[in-house]
């Protein structure tokens, strides 16, 4: 069955609905008189138009506008709730980074334990509080550092004891300036014949 290719065919839906201009209505009606295919199509379209749809209950229409706005507000709130954790999580992460970066510069002195200047106290053997900062670096160094701790305080250069650049953070060692590290290494090499210093640096 070959379909009619006449352009009138495209006007059939409006013809069935009666929404065409009078002239067009006549043109389509004339075409239908001689075209069986379009007559068949017209009958299909009329059937489609005859469909009776189920009516919603009256309350549906009256309550619809209110339901739409309340549901939209509820969705917006849900969306906001979903956004909050991501935002606060990011802020928390940023805060941690900032605090971590600022910590060395702002770390208050009092956090360092009071130096023990008593006989046998650690302050007499090593720079103030240094042993407590280094020890957490790695347990494997503790035995070696014990040898370092046995150093005589008098053999430690003054510049090492007084340097303000000796900033310890995390494992502590990498934040020393190069000059201080060199002094520290030389000191260890000098005082420990087994090359403990090399081990510390490795």
């Amino acid at each position: 069955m070959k379909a009619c290719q006449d352009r009138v065919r495209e006007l059939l839906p409006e013809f069935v609905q009666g929404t065409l201009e009078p002239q067009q209505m006549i043109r389509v009606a004339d075409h239908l008189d001689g075209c069986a295919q379009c007559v068949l199509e017209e009958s299909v379209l009329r059937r489609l138009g005859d469909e009776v749809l189920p009516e919603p209950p009256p309350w549906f229409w009256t309550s619809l506008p209110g339901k739409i706005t309340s549901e939209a507000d509820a969705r917006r709130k849900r969306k906001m709730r979903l956004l909050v954790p991501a935002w606060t999580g990011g802020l928390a992460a940023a805060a941690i980074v900032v605090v971590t970066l600022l910590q060395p510069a702002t770390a208050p002195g009092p956090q360092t334990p009071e130096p023990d200047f008593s006989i046998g106290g650690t302050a007499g053997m090593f720079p103030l509080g240094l042993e407590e900062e280094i020890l957490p670096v790695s347990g494997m160094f503790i035995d070696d550092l014990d040898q370092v701790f046995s150093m005589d305080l008098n053999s430690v250069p003054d510049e090492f004891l007084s340097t303000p650049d000796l900033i310890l953070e995390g494992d502590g060692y990498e934040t020393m300036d190069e000059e201080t590290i060199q002094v520290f290494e030389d000191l260890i090499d000098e005082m420990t014949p087994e090359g403990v210093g090399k081990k510390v640096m490795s």
Partner: protein
Amino acid sequence: MTDQITLERELVSRAREGDSEAFEDLVRMYQDSLYRYLCRLSGNGEDAMELTQNSFVKAYVSIRRFRGESSFKTYLFRIATNSWKNTIRDRSKRHHVDIEQVSLASAHNPHEEFEQNQERRKFWSLVERLPARQKQALVLRVQEGYPFEEVAKVMGCSTGSAKASYHHAVEKLKLAVTGEDR
């Protein structure tokens, strides 16, 4: 018609500014046609009610993103079409037109009435089984009276593609009417 377009633009403009009463007027303006459209697509009133509400909610939430490149009705029907597509995608079972609610011809002869009922049932069953795009094109063109250009906008395709979908659907229904589809 021009008055309606002007009124629609004004209401959309106010709704974009957050005027919920203006949006409620838009709802009243299109609720019937949107429900009918969704009823034809979904094949049952309950789904159509749910989809109507959801479509309006989506339109309300996204009204600020509506750029006015088409009419608000077209925009709304496109949202509704996508909602319907998502629904059928999510469901494994198919819904069918509630045949009992389809009006019957006023035939007094019970046998004739039965025959007509059977024929009508078969016709609507075929409409229901049409591929989604063909069904959309048919409903928009015939039952909503959209020109092909608007049908294409709602379907999100070219005018040629909308025409092709429509003609395929009509040809299938013609074959069903003549009994040549057996």
